[in-house]
């Protein structure tokens, strides 16, 4: 009986999400609202994928935003500088980003803990340096302007007002299904095992470095696609995507939403993107608010906003058997 309710709840939430996804682009027709919606969905893709490596696998991976940026630059450079057909650049971006992600993580994961964070941070800075030094190809600090409209079988997405909205939604839904599937698979469980008790996990025969490199490569696929969509939608690729403030904003989505939950960062991405945009007139103060939110969340709600669900006793009982968030577990210990 109880299991039935769980299943009904799950099916109901899927129906609600799909219904909202179908209706939202038709309701939010204003230019500003639509723009905000597309951006928040793309950020949700990036943040929820970052959660796989940062939250589930506990890798101090700060190169994730670089994957997003490289994706957008590959799309822009391929289409503008080399005349690559507009659908092929998506595939190209995924291939490049997965290759870069795999190579860098294979090297960086020779290290442990904090060193991984430092090297992956350095990679993001390297991207900015490369963009500035190879001005002829990348457009330098100005970026590349005039990225062509995304075109699928002769249909230009920009010609129809809702097209990018739907495209972003499809990407988010597919990526979320893939991430949830990965996170709950044997592969995902091995990542959590490595995070929580590495020596034991390795002792049980889990190859630590390989699993982590694979996790980073997997999470970089939807992220690079989000970067492509970002470039095609905004018509520009700008070095701002590698900036410290975007990294922090995305990081706050993962943490405030709840690391190790996938859904939490998605909700937080939408709330924080709309929130920071809504507080536009506050200028820099809104970043200060986000910073305070991060610290307060880590201090008083280590599981993030998503962990508020667990205050409902029935869900708490069910959840107790599941994978804990990397920050939530320490609160109880």
């Amino acid at each position, binding site marked *: 009986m109880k299991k039935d309710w769980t299943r009904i709840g799950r099916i109901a939430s899927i129906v609600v999400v799909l219904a909202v996804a179908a209706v939202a682009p038709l309701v939010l027709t204003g230019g500003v609202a639509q723009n905000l919606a597309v951006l928040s969905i793309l950020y949700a893709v990036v943040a929820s994928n970052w959660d796989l490596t940062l939250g589930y696998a*506990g890798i*101090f991976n700060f190169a994730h935003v670089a994957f997003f940026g490289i994706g957008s630059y590959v799309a822009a450079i391929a289409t503008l500088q080399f005349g690559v057909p507009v659908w092929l650049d998506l595939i190209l971006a995924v291939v490049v980003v997965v290759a870069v992600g795999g190579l860098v993580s294979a*090297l*960086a994961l*020779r*290290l*442990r*803990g*904090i*060193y991984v*964070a*430092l*090297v992956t*941070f*350095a*990679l993001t*800075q*390297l991207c900015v*340096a*490369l963009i*500035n*030094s190879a001005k002829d190809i990348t457009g330098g600090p100005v970026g590349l302007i005039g990225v062509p409209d995304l075109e699928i079988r002769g249909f230009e997405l920009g010609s129809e007002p809702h097209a990018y909205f739907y495209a972003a939604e499809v990407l988010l839904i597919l990526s979320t299904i893939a991430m949830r599937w990965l996170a709950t698979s044997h592969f995902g469980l091995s990542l959590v095992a490595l995070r929580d008790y590495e020596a034991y996990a390795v002792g049980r025969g889990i190859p630590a470095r390989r699993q982590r490199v694979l996790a980073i490569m997997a999470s970089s696929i939807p992220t690079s696609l989000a970067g492509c969509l970002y470039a095609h939608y905004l018509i520009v690729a700008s070095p701002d995507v590698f900036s*410290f*403030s975007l990294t*922090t904003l995305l*990081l*706050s989505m993962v*943490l405030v939403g709840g690391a190790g939950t996938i859904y939490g960062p998605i909700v937080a991405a939408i709330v924080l993107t709309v929130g920071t945009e809504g507080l536009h007139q506050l*200028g*820099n*103060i809104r*970043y*200060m608010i*986000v*910073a*305070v939110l*991060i*610290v307060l969340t*880590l*201090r008083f709600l280590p599981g993030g906003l998503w962990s508020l669900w667990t205050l409902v006793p029935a869900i708490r009982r069910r959840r107790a058997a599941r994978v804990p968030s*990397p*920050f939530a*577990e*320490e609160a109880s*210990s």
Partner: protein
Amino acid sequence: MGAIIVSGLVSGALYALVAAGLSLIWGSLGVFNFAHGVLLMTGAYAAWWLSSPDGLGLGLGIGIVGALAFMVVLGFVVYLLLVRPWIGKANAELAVIMTTIAGSIFLQNLILEIFGGRYKTIDQVVTGTVAIGGTTIQAQNLLVIILAPVLLIAMWLFLTRNRTGLAIRAVAQNQDAAQLFGIGVERIYIATFAVSAVLAGVAGILLGGLFNISPDMGTDPLLRAFVVVVFGGLGSLPGTILGAYAIGMIEAFSSYYIGIYWTPVVLFVVLIGVLVVRPTGLMGRPT
């Protein structure tokens, strides 16, 4: 050639000051302070505000002393709000990365809000130029080259002779044993953060005399310090200092012979090279 070496020594000295502070905190607390670059920037702004006619106009001497005193307080506040609640918890390392990133965003935007984004300049501590060995260098550059090693030696003496300094090292080596010997670990953590913040402040004031002051002036030195500590090994002070000068020199020579835009690429390649050969840095210890 002389000019390249001077430029390498100046950068090396500044990186050594910045990275030593990071290394010190890592050694004793086992956490990494991402707000270190912003501490540097705040120190420069404090000195500017106290000394400049556009601020309080109290003169450079009071500006420097006041700014360093302020850094002690700021180091304490950063420790109290962003580090202390997580010390001893399972995921302190990751949590403190996040909290100090948040702290640095907060401080940077606060400074931007108070002082605006326009560049400011602090007076140089010493002015004029000095000719050494056929090369003319700015006196401030010479000051940086001399002052940094003096400060680092002073810090070394403090850590090996002074009771508080010895306690810092004792806590770094074995916290439980140190506590058994009656060392107040909490007090030592605060002292470590204060020393580290003061070093950042000195670097900020020196940097502010050489270049402009802006809210993001701490970002580049912090990123270089990342490379330095990975290169030299975190927690090893000699390694960090050696790494700082090595990176400063590589940067100076690469800027001259390869080009300033490609220098970050060269540094990254060097970094990856070191990591492939020695994953814990030149003199680091495994975490």
